């Protein structure tokens, strides 16, 4: 029993890591007023690039860097369409997802099913990992896990406690007013989209070189979409994204726990997606003013108009 609990907590942390990374990125992006539905596609690109680079060079961290670079680069497409061209952000984001999924499938073809022999060592935090039960479950994890939490906390600090953070948030709330205060709205939005893309790619890298240590087409399995829902669930706050992501990580793991009880595995596989729907439904009953949604989310901003 004891072992089951420990391993469940441990797997929950692992499953929540990519969700947290992607959600943090999406929060940053949406806070600047740009809706990016391309998370799933960028994640897939990140996963495949990280895998290929790690496999060919034998350097997992090089793989991670390459993935982040690729994710940022491909996100420029969405930034250009939604900021410079003022295109519909839903359409542009969907296009990015399709592009990313297709591209990753194509370049990843020769690598499908090949196992990755290079391992990223777990990091054991001294002392903390000696705490009974949770010590081993929480403080003996892959570096991605710690990175995700640190990045989420840093993002929270950035948004709430720095001048640039105020500028990013104001851009999402009222780009016109923000511009009159001497902020370059387009620049803020470009960087928010690009950095958000980097986060998504990092999530993908975790999937391919740490979580499953292999590449198959479609291995992101809708996690990008869940991250978008989690962004809402976290009320656009990276701090809340931490626990929201791990709750969802838990739902992923619960599937395996419930399987022996004779519940149809197909039904269990639906759980994370059903939970997403339920959460969106519950959230929609809240007072919209307390929701914190950026007021101008997904609205293109044209300069020189009233």
């Amino acid at each position: 029993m004891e072992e089951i609990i420990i391993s469940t907590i441990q797997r929950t942390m692992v499953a929540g890591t990519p969700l947290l990374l992607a959600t943090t990125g999406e929060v940053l992006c949406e806070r600047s007023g740009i809706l990016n539905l391309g998370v799933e596609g960028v994640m897939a690109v990140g996963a495949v690039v990280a895998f290929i680079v790690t496999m060919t060079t034998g350097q997992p961290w090089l793989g991670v860097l390459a993935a982040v670079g690729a994710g940022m680069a491909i996100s420029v497409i969405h930034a250009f369409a939604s900021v410079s061209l003022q295109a519909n952000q839903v359409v542009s984001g969907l296009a990015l997802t399709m592009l990313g999924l297709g591209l990753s499938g194509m370049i990843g073809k020769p690598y499908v099913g090949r196992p990755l022999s290079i391992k990223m060592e777990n990091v054991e935090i001294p002392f903390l990992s000696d705490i009974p039960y949770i010590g081993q479950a929480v403080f003996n994890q892959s570096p991605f896990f710690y990175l995700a939490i640190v990045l989420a906390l840093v993002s929270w600090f950035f948004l709430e406690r720095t001048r640039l953070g105020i500028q990013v948030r104001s851009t999402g709330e009222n780009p016109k007013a923000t511009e009159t205060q001497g902020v370059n709205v387009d620049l803020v939005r470009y960087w928010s989209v690009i950095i958000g893309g980097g986060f998504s790619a990092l999530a993908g890298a975790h999937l391919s070189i740490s979580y499953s240590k292999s590449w198959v087409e479609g291995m992101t399995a809708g996690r990008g979409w869940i991250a978008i829902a989690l962004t809402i669930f976290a009320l656009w706050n990276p701090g809340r994204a931490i626990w929201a992501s791990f709750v969802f990580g838990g739902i992923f793991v619960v599937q395996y726990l419930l399987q022996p009880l004779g519940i149809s595995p197909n039904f269990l596989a639906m759980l994370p997606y059903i939970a997403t729907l339920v959460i969106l439904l519950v959230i929609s009953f809240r007072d919209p003013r307390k929701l914190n949604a950026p007021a101008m989310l997904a609205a293109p901003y044209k300069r020189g108009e009233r």
Partner: protein
Amino acid sequence: MKKIQRLEMVDICKSFHGVHANKDINLTVNSGEILGLLGENGAGKTTLMNILYGLYQPDGGQIRINGKPIKISNPVESISHGIGMVHQHFMLVQNHSIIENIALGYKDTPFFFPKIKIRERVKEFSRQFDFRMDLNQKVWQLSAGEQQRVEIIKALLNGADLLILDEPTSVLTPQEIRELIDILRRMKADGHSIIFISHKLDEIMDICDRVTVLQKGQIVGNADTKDMDKQGLARMMVGRDVSFKVDREKLEKGSQVLSVEDIHVTGDKGLPAVKGVSFNLYKNEIFGIAGVAGNGQRELAEAITGIRKIDTGSIRVNGQNITNMSPRKIYDYGVSHVPEERIRFGIAPGLFLYDNAILKQHHLKKFSKRYFLKYNQVKNHAKTIISDFKVSTHSINNQIRNLSGGNIQKLILGREISEQPDLLVASHPTYGLDVGATEFLRQHLLQLRRQGSTVLLFSEDLEEIFELCDRVAVIFAGELMGILEADDQRLCDIGLMMAGSKRVGDNTHLPENNQV
């Protein structure tokens, strides 16, 4: 030494959809000088200043600083040249706190923990400009007057070399206006240049050295204020004589129209905003509520018009209990509303002018049949409002947000008044109107009164209150400090009442005659 010794705009042209908003404008302002920019609603003042601030690009012409031509393609550049601006339409982030709004624009905001430094700066500054507000409040919780104060503070803290103020005083109290004027005078002495736009000619006469007058996008005159009087300025603006005094003949009060009984209303801040207010209004009267912004005026107006729920108490219109009914039902009982924030509550900015001309009235028989609108009638109605209220626009097929501030206000007034309401609840109705339109509106309100309507007028502008109202109440911290007849001597103490330090009945042995 200020960076800007002399700023010139030379032959500036700008048109929208083929209509000139500015044509061949030449304007100069020197260091240590306050220039007044005057003109009717829609004359092109805001457009011209937006060009100077880099929000619009001119179609032609040049801007020069100290004789050197410069290009200003966005506010980042204008700010770096030393230009600052208070915008006519508040440029505030509604969901952010006051302090975050100030931090956004302040030039010396530190990168880390910006709020701490800003809080100190504001505290320091509020010795000059009274700014007793909780800085953690969100802007959407503030009334129009409070928002205007935030806008001013934002600009003053930066202390731009050239400060543009586009109707900064429209919803301030006389006391606040005086404080602002003092600060501007000091800045002038320090060598700043200031461009000041206002429709309040007394202010213009008071602080401006020179004025430039625009009409339909062109300059029609320049003058030194010392050789001018108010009448002359008005004549330059509208091309005719304007009377600043209105005749309010004595009328007998009619039957009771509105009765407000001991209502309590919670404000957006989550605190009680209106605490046990009672009064009655009668046919043929204009009833004014004076007070400093943020003392419950907005909540009271919203409670009466159904936008905000009442916690306890009751409101009756013509004997009918309308407490907590929907705004649309209340409208059907004959209550019209001119809200205090025209852009947020008065219009749907992205809709066309004719759509906005029938908000809340779309269900009336004359505008709709079953599920469909009768667009011919709607458009005709819009045209009537435009011609009656002299709304200046090139077409009714125009998004209403493209109109100038004063013209949006005129359309709202036209919509709310033209149906001859039993009760008109109006929050500073002359907000942003030019002198001609103000005169017209005041006459119109008096005519409504003559025809048997009742007007409940909220205003920070005491002169307006004294000129129009038969009875005046002063509101402070959500309570009425007293209700007085317009000719009551005790109104001399209105300033004290607005500050909450005096109530009618204090120090006097007169009976409280305020509960009519």
